């Protein structure tokens, strides 16, 4: 999980490695994700996150689709 200063840099980095780029996430969106994911990390009462809750955090900041799904749909518990 890395930073890039631009889409061009991300594209060049992926081309050099022969890999397909994943989604590029702008810094403001990454901050919202970080708040949702880690905002209660130091709270001893914070419950262990379920895959569904993780999926909801991603979706809540606009990160949707199979790339951001922590559990394949067919394996997800209801």
């Amino acid at each position, binding site marked *: *999980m*890395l*930073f*890039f*200063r*631009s*889409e061009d*840099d*991300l594209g*060049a*980095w992926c081309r*050099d490695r022969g*890999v397909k*780029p*994943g*989604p*590029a*996430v*702008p*810094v*403001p969106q*990454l*901050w919202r*994700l*970080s*708040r949702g*994911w*880690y*905002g209660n*990390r*130091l709270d*001893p009462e914070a419950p*262990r996150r379920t895959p569904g809750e*993780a999926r909801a955090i*991603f979706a809540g900041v606009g990160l949707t689709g*199979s*790339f*951001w*799904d*922590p*559990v*394949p749909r067919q394996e997800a518990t209801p």
Partner: protein
Amino acid sequence: MPLETQTRTAILEFFAETGIAPTPATVAERLGVDVPSVQRTWVRLREGRAIVTGEDGVSIRMANPFSGVPTDHTFESAGVHYYANCAWDALGIPAALGRGGTVRSHCANSEEPLRLKVTENGPEPSDWLFHSLVPAVRWWDDIVFT
């Protein structure tokens, strides 16, 4: 509160206070319990992915968002220097701490340094991008690579 929860919390609090990973002995002393009890809990935390240990099975490599080993992604706040596991965790640390500071990293392609000021309300305006090569479902296949 179960010892596992106490231990997990003590590990994260130690990271938050010092920027470095605690040992089982440090946590045992902090909790007022014996070291073997904490060592047994260490194993359960590792199995539950609350921590990732080094090859010795004891030293903490990761307690997300904190890294127990030096990395290229850091956060500095209130005189404490933190290592993050990745670009995401570099913002995850201020989110967890709820306080501002400075994130430092670099562009993986150009090596241009990134210096990003962060307040408790978020980072200063930036058009940099975060990228994960690995989809979420495979992050824990090799969490160190991820």
